[in-house]
């Protein structure tokens, strides 16, 4: 850390070991699939093997299979099963196809659920799937997202009359005006390939019915939101439903859903009045948990010859897949305000087309829209730098918002509260050894070394903690941006923190304990956190978009303030002084000027619980709740630098050095922050170099297992050098900015910029992601053929 020293007198800011680890490292875990109950039935879903077809389903034979209790198709549930939900009307003319949880008469992607078998064991349930008979009357499949927009192309949804969900064009002609003044106009086309989030724990659902209510355990990021959606979709009253997210093995956006399987599990449990369990296989998961990214970007930038950026135009085509999930349609818009990134410019245009195809629906994946935007911006900055013969960091410095210019309203209308791009970049350069590596790159170029060195830059920002609620309302998002916290103070002064933000690996238990320990002056060990259960935590908006600390943590801090205010009344009453005469520090109230007159907050708790002698009319409880609605989003930033060695003869790239300096505002636990950054970098490198969800022309997912879909292993990745600068957010009481997505957003462009930089002397200006050895090798070979005069690494840039 460079600008602020960690506080040493409190647990806040300390790299404390996580409280949640003890049960995870000993296997004493509570995964949903661990739950076994007497009489429990197991579900297995029959899924379409065909991308687009009319169907007729016959379940009779399967129903008489050994161990099978029931088999249901859409006809058995009818209107009872409702339709899948979407949460964002992005455009007044937006098309919304109906999506029943089980296909009624038409399937539209491979993996779409058609029927469910209910059996005594998971093996028996799977056995019976093959006995369900389905007639598939194949229809033409729409696979290519651009072809889908052409006239006369078959339709994914006949009833909509088009494959376009909506077309949004930002108003005004500021970009054209800026372009008129430009010396340089550069245009590139980038592909954000389809990614599969692949949390390590596959999805699992258990539903336990009682007489007239239900408990659902689900491997979900959003138990609170899920409960509301289930109520809206199935008509089962919200007050009769408890949703629990026990230990959840990762999400990355893929568990923000009210899935068909959750809806059907609930209906089956209701119908049979027995507990049911569904646990998906990895192959099922790859086909049907929503996918991420999948956009084509055409970006044009206009600049002066001295490198001054004038404007940017973004033409986006987003592949939504076959149906709308919660934020499918909105994901491209999460990026709309982020393409301009950290740069000042006069003109901006955003033009977005969203398209249905016969593929698995897309939705939020770690970063949701912001990685795509940051990639476009950071790749373009490197392209412009190369075109002008400038150092890419120098070009960025020329155009970024200076630290003294904050708060800053960007061309797309966001208000960045604070930032210091200079500090993060300087630190990053130093840790990287930027100048030495540039010198080495030069030497390798001059000596025509078959192994070239590339240096990639990514000076990114992102937007975390989607809010305020009012702004979301103006954007027609069917969700608020608030979060709720409750502090319960027990008679002996122990604390229970109840949070509406639901963890799936982020370490809320530890971070919240640190926050509360610091605020209330209660020992870290005396604090417990309850999360992920709508019975203990009745309201919340859960975990996504790096909102937990920024929004959920702020709610915790505000609830603590209310506890302190109540305790202050009790202390003033007991110590017989004015409330204003009390100072509160390290868990104790002292009377100003007489330090001997003192009352611990635990003593206030005890006195309050006894209620023998508290102020007249005071409620005998220190318990407090706070629902916090932020005033703005937060904008963490950072500079990531990557050095890649590219073997120009084999196309093999190896990351030689990776430096990440992130500024996520005030840090509660640096260990957790670092861990989030590491994991994010790895996922971003996955996109840059390894991962791609591919469909064949018939709409079969050809990367449907971990054999074909390569998520990086330890052997594929380097160790990272990480550090931080700290520019507190001025818009929330903690000063935190959010970190969950940062690494994932920053690393993809850093790595691709590095690989392109390595082979740029061959005249190469882009390599489509993932930059596999095959693709790099092909690009080099083709460039050598096309530009024989370059012929070598020394050949000069395009």
């Amino acid at each position, binding site marked *: 850390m460079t600008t602020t020293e960690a506080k040493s007198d409190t647990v806040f800011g300390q790299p404390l070991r996580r409280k949640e680890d003890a049960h995870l490292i000993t296997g004493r875990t509570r995964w949903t699939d661990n739950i076994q109950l007497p009489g429990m039935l197991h579900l297995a879903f029959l899924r379409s093997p065909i991308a687009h077809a009319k169907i007729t389903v016959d379940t009779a034979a399967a129903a008489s299979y050994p161990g099978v209790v029931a088999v249901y198709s859409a006809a058995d549930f009818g209107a009872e099963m409702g339709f899948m939900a979407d949460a964002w009307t992005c455009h007044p003319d937006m098309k919304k196809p109906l999506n029943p949880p089980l296909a009624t008469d038409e399937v539209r992607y491979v993996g779409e659920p058609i029927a469910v078998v209910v059996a005594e064991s998971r093996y028996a349930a799977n056995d019976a799937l093959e006995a369900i008979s389905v007639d598939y009357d194949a229809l033409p499949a729409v696979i290519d997202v651009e072809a889908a927009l052409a006239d006369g192309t078959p339709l994914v949804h006949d009833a909509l009359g088009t494959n376009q969900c909506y077309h949004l064009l930002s108003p005004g002609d500021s970009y054209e005006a800026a372009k008129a003044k430009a010396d340089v106009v550069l245009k590139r086309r980038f592909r954000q390939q389809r990614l599969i989030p692949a949390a390590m724990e596959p999805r699992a659902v258990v539903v336990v019915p009682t007489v007239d209510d239900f408990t659902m355990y689900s491997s979900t990021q959003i138990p609170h939101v899920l409960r509301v959606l289930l109520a809206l979709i199935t008509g089962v009253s919200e007050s009769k439903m408890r949703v629990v997210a026990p*230990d959840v093995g990762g999400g990355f956006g893929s568990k923000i859903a009210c899935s068909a399987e959750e809806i059907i599990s609930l209906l089956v449990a209701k119908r049979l009045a027995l507990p049911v369990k569904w646990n998906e296989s990895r192959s099922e998961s790859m086909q049907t948990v929503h996918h991420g990214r999948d956009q084509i970007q055409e970006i044009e930038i206009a600049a002066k010859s001295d490198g001054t950026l004038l404007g940017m135009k973004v033409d986006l085509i987003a592949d939504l897949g076959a149906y709308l999930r919660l934020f499918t349609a909105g994901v491209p818009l999460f990026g709309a305000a982020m393409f301009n990134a950290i740069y000042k410019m006069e003109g901006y245009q955003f033009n977005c087309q969203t398209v249905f195809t016969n593929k698995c629906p897309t939705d939020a994946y770690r970063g949701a829209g912001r990685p795509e935007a940051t990639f476009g911006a950071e790749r373009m900055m490197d392209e412009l730098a190369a075109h002008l013969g400038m150092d890419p960091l120098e070009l960025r410095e020329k155009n970024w918002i200076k630290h003294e210019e904050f708060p800053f309203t960007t061309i797309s209308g966001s208000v960045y509260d604070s930032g210091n791009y200079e500090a993060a970049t300087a630190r990053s350069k130093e840790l990287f050894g930027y100048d030495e590596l540039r010198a080495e790159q030069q030497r390798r170029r001059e000596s025509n070394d078959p192994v070239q060195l590339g240096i990639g830059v990514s000076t990114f920002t992102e937007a975390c903690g989607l809010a305020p609620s009012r702004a979301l309302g103006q954007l027609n998002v069917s969700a608020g941006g608030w979060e709720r916290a409750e502090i319960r103070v027990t008679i002996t002064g122990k604390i229970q923190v109840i949070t509406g933000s639901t963890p799936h690996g982020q370490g809320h238990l530890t971070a919240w304990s640190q926050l509360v320990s610091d605020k209330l002056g209660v020992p870290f060990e005396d604090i417990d956190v309850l999360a992920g259960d709508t019975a203990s935590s009745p309201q919340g908006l859960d975990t996504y978009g790096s909102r937990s600390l920024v929004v959920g943590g702020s709610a915790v801090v505000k609830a603590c303030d209310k506890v302190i205010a109540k305790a202050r009344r009790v202390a003033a009453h007991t110590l017989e002084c004015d409330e204003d005469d009390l100072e509160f520090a390290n868990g104790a109230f002292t009377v100003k000027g007489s330090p001997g007159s003192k009352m611990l907050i635990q003593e206030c708790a005890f006195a309050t619980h006894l209620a023998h002698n508290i102020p007249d009319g005071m409620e005998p409880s220190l318990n407090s709740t706070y629902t916090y609605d932020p005033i703005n989003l937060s904008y963490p930033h950072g500079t990531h630098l990557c050095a890649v060695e590219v073997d120009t003869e084999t196309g093999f790239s190896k990351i030689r050095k990776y430096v990440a300096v992130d500024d996520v505002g005030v840090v509660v636990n640096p260990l957790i922050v670092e861990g989030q950054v590491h994991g994010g970098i790895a996922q971003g490198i996955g996109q840059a170099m390894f991962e791609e969800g591919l469909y064949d022309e018939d709409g079969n997912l050809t990367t449907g297992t971990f054999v074909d879909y390569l998520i990086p292993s330890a052997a594929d990745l380097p160790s990272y050098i990480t550090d931080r600068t700290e520019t507190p957010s001025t818009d929330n009481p903690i000063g935190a900015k959010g970190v969950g997505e940062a690494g994932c957003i920053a690393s993809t462009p850093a790595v691709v910029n590095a690989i392109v930089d390595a082979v740029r002397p061959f005249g190469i200006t882009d390599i489509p992601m993932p930059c596999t050895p095959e693709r790099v090798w092909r690009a080099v070979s083709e460039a050598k053929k096309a530009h024989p005069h370059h012929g070598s690494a020394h050949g000069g840039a395009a």
Partner: protein
Amino acid sequence: MAKITVKVDGVSRSDEVEPRLLLVHYLRDVRGRVGTVVGCDTSNCGACTVLLDGQSVKSCSVLAVQADGSDVLTIEGLASTVDSELHPVQEAFRECHGLQCGYCTPGMIMASVDLLNNNPNPSEQEIREGIEGNLCRCTGYHNIVRAVQTAAATMANGSVGVTA
């Protein structure tokens, strides 16, 4: 149905099982050792790694009947009770923040124990290659590698375990 006798975490028991039952499902559903988990169906992720007669195996790629007469050690047997001594590898994972959601962790720990049993002083590269068959989506492996290094150092100092 087939009759098998398997010692799991020190406890021997006989069970009637379907011949096709996977060892991982036997451990979880029959023997209640739910610490070992399933992450894939192609033997790629390593979430289900246990020690079978001292060697790490992916228990999703072994049939329960193949384990007849064997000795299986799962994550729950590595530290035999909640309050007992943690294995140095478990301790190091906690110390180095080598886990986030924790889903890969039991398998990762078992694979690391096997790695260190065979190579008590591995280089970073050897660690990375040694746990290549275990996928983690959360940590980026950086802290897992550090945890294995830390455990190697602890074990080299002659300590077999540290108190939880």
